[in-house]
């Protein structure tokens, strides 16, 4: 499944990310655990939480990030 279809209050692990430098720099990389904090309306970003960091990821980008439920 992809990040965009994740729901709140479940834990996921990142499986595969597209080649975007900033994604890696922000620690969004394979094997990292996260949860969904909120989704913004009007096709807005998905906010995920890794550890105690909140990161807003654009919806189109979130569709390219493969994840797994744990």
């Amino acid at each position, binding site marked *: 499944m992809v990040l965009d279809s994740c729901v709140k209050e479940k834990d996921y692990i990142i499986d595969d990310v597209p080649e*975007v*430098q*900033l*994604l*890696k*720099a*922000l*620690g969004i*990389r394979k094997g990292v655990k996260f949860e969904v*904090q*909120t989704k*913004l*309306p*009007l*096709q*807005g*970003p998905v*906010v995920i939480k890794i*550890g*105690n*960091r*909140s*990161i*807003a*990821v*654009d919806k*189109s*980008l979130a569709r390219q990030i493969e994840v797994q439920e744990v």
Partner: protein
Amino acid sequence: MGCHTEKALPISSEDKIKILLMGNPNVGKSVIFSKLTGVHVDSSNYVGTTVDFTYGDVKHRNKTGMVIDVPGTYSLQASSEAERVATNFLEEGADAIICVLDATHLDRNLDLALSLREYPIPIVYALNLLDVAERQGIIIDVEKLEKRLKAPVIPTVAIKNKGLRKLLDTAFSLANETVEAFPKQTEEERWETIADIIGDVQRHEYKEPTFIEKLEYITLKPWPGIPIALLVLLLSLGVVVGGGKALRALILLPLVNNVITPFLTRMVGLVVPAGIFRNLLVGEFGILKIGIEWPFALILPYVLLFYLVFSFLEDSGYLPRIAVLADGALSKLGIQGGNIIPMMLGYGCAVPAILGTRAATTYKERIMVATLVSFAIPCASQSGAFFALLGDKSILALILVYLMSLITLFVVGLVMNKAIKGKGQPMLLEIPNLLLPDRTAFFKKLKLRMKHFLLDAEGPMLIGIVIAAVIAETGILNSFSTMIEPFVEGWLGLPKEASLSLLLGIIRRELAVLPLLELDLNLLQLLVGSVVALFYLPCLSVFGVLTKEFSLRTSLGIGIATTATAFLIAGIINQIGTFIWALVG
């Protein structure tokens, strides 16, 4: 590379110890910078780039050093302009690096921390925001971290001045040492090392979420995040408009009108005989009369309060939340939410707003935000002028003017999104912690902003007022007014003297409004005049910055488009208004 160094740094660093202050964005680097440095702080553009950096002197014992606040970056991959600048600074060499680490997000910070060791420069790490980390239940073993990083780690709480003296001590004592660079690691190797270090030095303890943490969460969710954002914006508006009005009415206007102007008039009266020269100085449009009243009593309070509120929101970490909340709506215009920050800054001044678009990565976003800001966002000076003109006479007209600005913003945005090819950069943003701004850093920034306003804005404004005084008192204005009378009176329905607004509006935006104060206008005329001023030419400084950042063609294009819109919309309002007036009357 000698000349390269000179070019990159407009300051001489000879016989000073050169310290690079580095770190990820939003780790409190600027707070540390403002605490370490004295009053002599300046910012500069890194030659050949759009990146600005700040530098300042630091005195320690009897040695002088220079601290350079290198733009915050997550890594040294040179994938963005800020990262290239950071890499250049490292390659130019320095005596020491202070690398600021955010204790609440240590894992992400270690990427840069480890990359820095690959340069032969001694490093001291400042483990900052330790108090926040403790509140969140994060426990870091500093001694172990030192061993793993093979360099000193100083725990700091910058906003409370904790650990800063020791940080500086360590940096200065390291400056004499020579170190060898660590072997280069690939990205994958580095992240393995990071996972290993984190497992070794960091522990988590469960803590009940603090009030701030709860606030951080609810300000991000659509509900109640969006209503909170609207409330914050409304409150900010209230402080700027209400506070500005109070400052103006209670302190500045009485001071100027009852004390300063009468005093100057009397003094000039004693020295200068009645006639054209006395009129030039203290006549109706006198330089000493208008030249003090307009900039200081009518404009300055709003500019000051705007920057006060904006800097507060900026330093508290709240603005990125607005960007996240607004992303959906702005993406309908083809630009991502982050662009709302330069647009908000545009309500202060268009020049820093246009420079702020450099943070946008695509050309489409840059040109769109720059155009929108030049087109329909009134700057604080112009808003001050609108409040002075309409505030007492018709609140409805004032609201109409701002409503019209918002509608135009949206329409121009939609048109440009269709007309300009390309896409905005998708949003990818780490949201910083909410925190109470540090006082030292806050006032330093406010001071720098007000200094820039006074230097950049008051000069042209005074020149405009001198021109106004000369052409008004010598009769040149009269012949010009007669020349364009058919247009001003016939199409816009304004008295011919309003042509002064059109002339001065070229210089600064508020000067397109303020001359209307001296005329006796009815409600329709006030509205028409304000609409002309709202969309009329961006000021000379904006022209300059648009030409520099884009091209002469772009700035001329924007100028022609805004002026045409101004005359078209204002004329239509006048014609319809007059028609209705005739029907009713």
